[in-house]
């Protein structure tokens, strides 16, 4: 049975314990940052920051969302990776650090802006779902540390059922009419499921994320048709005419000399 991680934004208090636990377990260096007028820190995900609590403020309310890899069933990063360094190991999307060439294609392809090229290793890096922990019966470091259990780890089916129950409660009892579950069916099913207290775009998530390669055949056709037809026509028009004109001139000249 596939495992998953449930992140409940209604429970997150932005302690950022997940960020610290992630760095500790994965031995990722701290980043030197500047005060930007917010406790949201560091400023963005990077090759050495794999989970980050995003802060969004609106009148009377903070919206917090731990932003990390979704481990998509249909993963854009895996599709575009030219060396097949990115692969699925069960539900986990893993970047093979010994095979990655650091081309940056996965960085452009991810609909959630997750992988980043690490300046030190030169490779693309991101959340590994703590594969070294979960294959040994432990939960990921972020879930283990989360004080209000806003991040939970378990059977995907159970977590989805729990997420729907939570959303029903949020709608009925807490006054969040737009609360929703995110990740159940997106991109073939995500393995990071969210309980959101509002619509996905409010939390910086695409309403309908698309696979980066979903239009690739049409894109190839666009280029090839332009080359083979549109760009070729002027040459046919101008140079074929030249051949004809020259043939006519030649016959005239020949006719003249007779």
């Amino acid at each position, binding site marked *: 049975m596939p495992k998953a991680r449930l992140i409940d934004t209604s429970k997150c208090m932005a302690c950022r314990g997940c960020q610290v636990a992630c760095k500790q377990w994965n031995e990722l260096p701290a980043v030197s940052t500047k005060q930007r007028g917010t406790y949201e820190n560091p400023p963005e995900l990077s090759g050495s920051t794999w989970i980050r609590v995003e802060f969004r403020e609106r009148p009377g309310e903070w919206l917090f969302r731990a932003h990390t890899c979704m481990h998509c069933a249909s993963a854009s990063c895996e599709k575009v990776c030219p*060396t097949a360094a990115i692969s699925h190991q069960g539900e986990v999307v893993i970047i093979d650090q010994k095979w990655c060439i650091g081309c940056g294609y996965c960085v452009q392809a991810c609909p959630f802006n997750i992988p980043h090229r690490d300046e030190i290793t030169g490779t693309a890096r991101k959340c590994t779902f703590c594969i070294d922990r979960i294959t040994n019966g432990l939960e990921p470091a972020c879930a283990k540390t989360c004080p209000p259990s806003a991040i939970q780890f378990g059977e995907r089916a159970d977590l989805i059922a729990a997420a729907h129950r939570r959303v029903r409660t949020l709608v009925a009892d807490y006054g969040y009419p737009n609360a929703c579950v995110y990740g159940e069916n997106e991109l073939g099913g995500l393995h990071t499921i969210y309980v959101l207290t509002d619509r996905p775009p409010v939390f910086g998530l695409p309403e309908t994320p698309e696979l980066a390669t979903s239009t690739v055949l049409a894109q190839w056709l666009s280029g090839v048709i332009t080359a083979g037809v549109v760009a070729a026509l002027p040459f046919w028009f101008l140079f074929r005419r030249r051949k004809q004109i020259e043939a006519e001139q030649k016959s005239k000249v020949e006719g003249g000399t007779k």
Partner: protein
Amino acid sequence: MITWSTSIWLYLWLAGIAGGAYFAAFLAERFAGEVNRKLLRLATYLGIPLAVIGVILLVVDLGQPLRFWHLLAEFKVISPMSMGTWILLVWVGIAVIMAVFWWAEYRLTEQMARNLRRITDVLAWVDFVFAGLLMAYTGVLLAASSQPLWVGTLLLPSLFVASAVSTGVAIVIITAVTGRNWAIPGRMVSRLAEADVILILVELAVLIGYAIWLGASTLAGTGEALRLLTIGALAAPFWLGVVLLALLVPFGLEVANWGKEIKTKAVWRTIIASSACVILGGLILRAVIVIAGQM
């Protein structure tokens, strides 16, 4: 965060010129019924170093440059970068073989040279197809991503192909009129300049279609991407570099030259100026699209 910067847009520009020059030279001579292939040779000799420089830029831009060979251990149809690697490899490989054959032609017996020409003829056709794929790939590479500017329409590969052929024609023209040793007939160059006028119109039409499509797209972020280009931080390079330099100025210059043979210094200067604008404008187009897509 800008992950793909200078090396990438320089590379897309160089690969486009290499493919475009070959594509244009091949078609011009095929339709004109030329047999000695001077134009195609010129385009091939220009294209090989341009493509190789582009590849070097790409490899240097990798986070792990010494692992570039991992690209050659995989053939992955769904990944445009993997396909591009193979397209580029085949295109350059065949171009080099053709160059060697052309060099060898003069050093063999007549019978052997004739056989070699027959092989070169087939290779030239194959490489023509790969030149088309190479130009298309520079656009498809960006279009298989999650950046709204690149994926919001199906016209980015089309735009890059139009620009590639236009810049390719321009570099062939400049080389033909400055390098007298090539002895490319003046009428051939004039027809190429006229072809470029039509190509510029095609590119302009595609660009307008691209902008309209982006504006009408329901995909999140396409509106912002369009505004960034047209009225935002990149408006100056877009309007001055792409619209004016790559399209309107060379269009005006080449229309003024339409039908004139290159006999006077003024026509000669105009043709070089307009071609230089096309080439430089093509570079700015790649830079603007690559950077804006990641902002």
